[in-house]
């Protein structure tokens, strides 16, 4: 599977831009994970398009995390949220890649 989403060349610029936004009046795009804590896990997702996009986003999140939060602990949720905002700002609506 070839990557459809190209990493943004300036994630630090996106992060800086996000921090300058007027968040009290602007929308903040995010990708929220869907977790189950009830002991009844979500059945495996079978939609190939969702899985393909998710794999791309997984790789991109890792790519941006390496560049923007290289020393962050895995459970640093503040850093995670910051990196997700960069991922979302760069890739939230990649219409040209949607079949």
């Amino acid at each position, binding site marked *: 599977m070839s990557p459809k989403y190209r990493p943004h060349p300036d994630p630090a610029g996106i992060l800086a831009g996000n921090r300058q936004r007027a968040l009290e*009046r602007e929308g903040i795009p*995010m990708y929220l994970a869907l977790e189950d*804590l009830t002991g009844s896990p979500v*059945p495996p997702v079978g939609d190939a398009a969702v899985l393909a996009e*998710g794999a791309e986003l997984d790789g991109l999140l890792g790519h941006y995390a390496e560049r923007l939060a290289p020393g962050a602990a895995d*459970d640093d949720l503040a850093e995670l949220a910051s990196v997700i905002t960069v991922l979302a700002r760069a890739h939230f609506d990649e219409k040209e890649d949607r079949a």
Partner: protein
Amino acid sequence: MTGNGFAQHRAALREGRYVRVVNYHNTPESMADALRHELAGYAASFDSVTLEHLDAFYATGRWPLERPGFIPVFYEGYLNNATVAAPICDELGLVAWFPIITRFLDCPVPEQRAFAEAHDITLVEEELSRDRLAMTWDDVAEIGQRHVVVPHTGSHEEIGRVRTAEDVEREIVRPRRDVERATGREAPAFVWLRGTEYGTSPVQDGWVRDTGYRYQISNTMIQRIA
């Protein structure tokens, strides 16, 4: 602990367990055209997610949608969410989620600005001179017919400051009761100030779960808790 973090989030993406959201706060009239344009762009690409869609995904691993799911979320219970954001969403056929600070709505109009300033509720400059800043319970009843309304605590409270039975009633229990009374529908989710996730504190987690909430919405996740 639930092991929340980068690895877990990456796994959720990889496994297709994710949803797009856009978090909004104030939506003043001065921003209406920009908001309409932005939401129209999302509506052109995505299908908005209802509670029934979310329940279906958790039950089956499939979204009953034709396009990727998307949730516009309007936080706090601002009057401008009711007068500007909700009508725009209606116009565009979008279902939005409204986490509201219930005591902000209860607050007498002359005291709403002081309440906002005391409870970390950001106001926009152009609305400081207005009397009413919070939506009314009639607004909640109206919005709740087409959208999802959930409590964002009673007072915009931090998890660590909810300790006593009185705190629990004020911040977790009564908000759910009030939202459900206004909308006539389930208030299925709870959101702490700062989007604290479930798994941070077993005591408060238990209170949220025991109140009947089925989901907790955090900064990085939607967690099904019951």
